[in-house]
């Protein structure tokens, strides 16, 4: 199945890890990478590449990042040029839960990412009881 790595600023990725564990428990083939103060893009790339290789068991991987154009995104992009991985930006909890649910359906990383973009957007709604 598709490996998943979440990479984000500060403790955000760790936050997603805790939220996922609370809802559905610790997941396999899933790693969380935190961009800490003082970490250079090269440091981050080494850590991220190690995580990507750890979760990929032959079906490729998804690198889910918090912010389009941020350092985790840009570093993840350089990794997608080197291994079988797709970068998904603006990740939210709904996307990650869906990703865990559909990642062994046999589709390739790009198709799964496309579906996740849809699901991510659907999860963003304005609600009020009046």
């Amino acid at each position, binding site marked *: 199945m598709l490996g998943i790595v979440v990479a984000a600023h500060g403790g955000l990725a760790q936050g997603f890890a805790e939220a996922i564990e609370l809802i559905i428990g610790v997941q396999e083939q899933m790693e969380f990478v935190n961009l800490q103060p003082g970490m250079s893009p090269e440091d981050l790339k080494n850590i991220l590449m190690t995580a990507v290789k750890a979760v990929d068991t032959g079906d490729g991987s998804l690198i889910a990042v918090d912010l389009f*154009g941020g350092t985790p995104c840009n570093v993840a992009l350089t990794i997608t040029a080197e291994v079988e991985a797709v970068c998904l930006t603006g990740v939210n909890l709904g996307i990650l839960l869906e990703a865990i649910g559909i990642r062994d359906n046999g589709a390739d990383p790009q198709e799964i990412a496309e579906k996740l973009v849809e699901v991510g957007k659907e999860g963003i709604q304005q609600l009020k009881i009046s």
Partner: protein
Amino acid sequence: MAIALIRIDDRLIHGQITTKWIAHANANRIMIASDRIVQDKIRKSVVELTAPKSIKTEVVTLAEAIEKLTGPLAGENCKVFVICVSPDEVLALKQGGVAFNQVVIGNMGAMGSIEPATRVTKSVLLTGKDRKDFNELLELGVKCEIRVIPSDRPVDIVRLL
């Protein structure tokens, strides 16, 4: 083309830049002026993929940048946010006749440098060559200030060389 702002940042376009500096500089175009980036297919692709969709972004060599920035104006309402990865590139622009007298320094991480570098601020590492290049820029009358985001208090590089 009018230069809205020149910035040295080896992270090129990334979160802080796109959200704050472009608005601050009132720029409607981004130009990455760097021979190094033109030749680095992967970093060039990262720029092309992550440039804000609402603004025209180009990655050009220093020679092309000099031509565009000193040639006849390509439209009066063209305000360019220029990004270089190191002071030697900014120096080349100045020596090539591009008119500007200040540069903002963001992130300098001594990426790809074999020379030892010392950290002078949270976001800036300088090699011996960087110091030499900044001194030349200062001699040419270019004020060089470190500011990661527009609201930061500027730190004049002259104090840290």
